[in-house]
Every structure is written in structure tokens, then in C-alpha cells.
């Protein structure tokens, strides 16, 4: 009786496609959390205000007011 053949899935360290699929929903929520953190912490940075936040529909005018004052200097 031949020895059973052991098949290995492709992996990088302990990371395999199955594990990636399993953690995908949680990782997506972590990504959203990271995005919200960048917006919160970056909401005082002029270039983020001007290029990202002032272009948000409906509430973008909140950041648009501060941007021209920076440019007038």
C-alpha cells in the first residue's frame, strides 16, 4: 500500500487562500474603520479638506468654507 500523498495548498507563511476568505468580512470592516480614522484625523489637514472632504455631496460645504481662507494668504 503506497503512502498517501500529502497535498499542500499554496501558502505564504501561515496565510492560505482559505484563511484569507474566512477573514475577508472582518478585514473589510477593519478597512472601513481605517478609512474613518484617516478622515477623522485628517479633517484638519488642508489638502484633505480641499481635495476629498469638500467634494462630499450635501455636507461638503462644511469643509469648503475653510479652504479659500487658506488660499488667500
Amino acid at each position, binding site marked *: 500500500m503506497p503512502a498517501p500523498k500529502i497535498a499542500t495548498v499554496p501558502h505564504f507563511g501561515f496565510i492560505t487562500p482559505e484563511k484569507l476568505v474566512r477573514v475577508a468580512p*472582518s478585514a473589510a*470592516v*477593519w478597512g*472601513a*474603520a481605517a478609512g*474613518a*480614522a484617516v*478622515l*477623522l484625523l485628517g*479633517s484638519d489637514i488642508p489638502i484633505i479638506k480641499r481635495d476629498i472632504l469638500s467634494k462630499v455631496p450635501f*455636507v461638503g460645504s*462644511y469643509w469648503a468654507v475653510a479652504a479659500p481662507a487658506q488660499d488667500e494668504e
Partner: protein
Amino acid sequence: MSLANTFYNTLVKKNSVFVATIFASAFAFEVAFDTTSTRVWDSLNKGKQWKDIKDKYVQ
């Protein structure tokens, strides 16, 4: 207890959801608080601020 249980199960149970909720609500609260307090200040000081009387002095 039902409201507390709903709060726990939807927002606190998973750490990723909890952290996302904290950052998103902090961002939203910052905007809402700033907008509201500015509006209250402007209405309490109506007619006293430079932006209200500017057109009397600037040609």
C-alpha cells in the same frame, strides 16, 4: 435590558465593528457639534460680528 443587548450585539461584540463605529461617530459628532455651536454663537451675536457689519465699512 433589550436596548443594551441590541447595542452590545450590533456595535460592541466584534472589535472591528466597535472601532469603526467609534471613528465614524467621532467624525460625525465633530461636524454636527461644530456646525450647531457655530450656529448658536452666530445667532447669539447677531449684528456684532465683523462678518455682519463688514458691508458698512468695506467699499
